[in-house]
């Protein structure tokens, strides 16, 4: 488990302290995929780099699996870092080493593996990320997606329990992003790997994360299960991200509401209720008429969900609302 206890960070620039992370407490469970979103400069990288102490905290405690890592001496710190893999937006592979040498690099640095162990492990990792035929190539001869796979293999070489991803898919096209995310998801399941993933795309969060933290100006402003944060965003920054990812224009939506009559409800279905023929039966039973103003049916990781905005007229409105709520649908009265 990764625990932050009132951790804060200010960068020292020309004698002045520039705050980058306000005092933050959070806990990331073992085996979970934890997303961090926020605008540029919000402090996402700072937070993640504190986990493997690439940045020293200005205060607070960072506890990993029950041990306070902020007090480690340099030897302990190096051993600890081996248990935390990291991948980067620009891959940061050594251009002077081949793919296999890049993957072997952290094992060689560790100095505790035999040549045979390294060779076997590298072959295994190459196979796992699907790059067996590219072992002897140099990074410059690979595509972005392949480079990130090398980055992932390298990060996994010393069998870490935590993987930090700083915008690992931001430099990739949508298709490649998808395949890299799928790989990360598989690794999370197969290896019980804890993954902390920074992104500025809500879509990435939606696809792989279990929980998400939203950051704004050095603060974690919202944190929770992705389904909650996604379907019921509270903070303005979160709403921005969610609406943007759903291609919803808030003003246009409100303009649409102007034209609609009657009561406007936003219904959120989750899990199995998404597929039930609920609306028709409620309409029949209560005599309300509805029209759909906007809607979307999709998945968050493995959970299907639907979100519909309806205008209802006529019939027994309170009864309709009650019937929907009784059927496990979240009902929000928009107007």
């Amino acid at each position, binding site marked *: 488990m990764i625990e932050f206890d009132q951790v804060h960070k200010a960068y020292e620039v020309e004698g002045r302290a520039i705050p980058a992370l306000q005092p933050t407490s959070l806990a990331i469970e073992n085996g979970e995929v934890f997303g961090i979103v926020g605008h540029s400069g919000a402090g996402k990288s700072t937070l993640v780099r504190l986990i493997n102490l690439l940045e020293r905290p200005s205060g607070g405690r960072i506890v990993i699996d029950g041990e306070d890592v902020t007090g480690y001496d340099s030897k302990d710190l*190096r051993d600890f870092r*081996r248990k935390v893999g990291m991948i980067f937006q620009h891959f940061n592979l050594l251009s002077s080493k081949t793919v296999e040498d890049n993957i072997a690099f952290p094992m060689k*640095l560790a100095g505790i593996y035999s040549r045979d162990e390294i060779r076997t492990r590298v072959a295994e990792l190459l196979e796992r990320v699907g790059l067996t035929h590219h072992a002897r190539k140099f990074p*410059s001869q690979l595509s972005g997606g392949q480079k990130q796979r090398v980055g992932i293999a390298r990060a996994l070489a010393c069998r870490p329990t935590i993987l930090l991803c700083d915008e690992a898919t931001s430099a990739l096209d949508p298709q490649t992003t998808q395949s890299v995310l799928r790989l990360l998801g598989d690794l999370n399941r197969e290896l019980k790997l804890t993954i902390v993933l920074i992104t500025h795309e809500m879509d990435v969060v939606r696809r792989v994360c279990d929980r998400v933290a939203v950051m704004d100006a050095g603060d974690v402003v919202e944190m929770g299960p992705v389904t909650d944060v996604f379907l019921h965003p509270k903070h303005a920054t979160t709403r921005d991200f969610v609406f943007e990812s759903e291609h919803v224009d808030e003003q246009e939506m409100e303009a649409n509401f102007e034209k609609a009559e009657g009561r406007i409800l936003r219904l959120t279905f989750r899990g199995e209720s998404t597929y039930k023929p609920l609306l028709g039966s409620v309409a029949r039973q209560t005599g309300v008429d509805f029209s759909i103003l906007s809607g979307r049916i999709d998945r968050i990781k493995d959970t299907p969900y639907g979100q519909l905005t309806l205008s209802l007229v006529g019939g027994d409105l309170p009864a309709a609302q009650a019937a929907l709520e009784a059927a496990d649908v979240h009902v929000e009265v928009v107007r």
Partner: protein
Amino acid sequence: MEDLLTNVDWGEIGGASWDTLVMVGASLFFSVLFGLPLGVLLFLTGKRQLLEQPVAYAVLSFVVNVLRSVPFIILLIVMIPFTVMLIGTSLGVAGAIPPLVAGGAPFFARLVETSLREVDRGIIEATQAMGATVRQVIFGALLPEAMPGIIAGITVTAITLVSYAAMSGVIGGGGLGDLAIRFGYQRFQTDVMVITVALLVIFVQILQMVGDRLVLYFSRR
């Protein structure tokens, strides 16, 4: 052809070429030997680098700048007593080497510093994140990544040393420069001058070509 080159003693030219080769080779060797660690140190102690040490950086940087800002011809003369103390003479091929190194090493050190700075910070960070020691970062990541730049730096240094070595002829340093000054300049033997200059040009061309090849070989970008 023979009529044109009446003053040229090919045996002497051959000997002088060999002397130049030795001077450049030896001084290049020592320039790299001293300049490389100096360059690495300059880089590491620099601002926001692995071993940031403002005072150490300022001192090293000052020494390097002083050596680099003294015109080489002056350095040659200033170094004479020191050279005599070091190897017993300030003349000939051996006497030229200490001033050549004094001029070449700081020059090369700056080039090393620059090529290390060009290594992507992200690579240093990634290496640190793997649990590398500072030593491992230097030898495992920084130097291999900067290798093309360092090789290019060696080439530039070698070429600079060729011209410095020629200059050392002024204080009796030996080699092609010495020949050019003694015969070409002082005795107006233009043909000797032309031949020595041509040889120097060829020498520089070869160095550049070999250097470029090596850079190409070492850059996998």
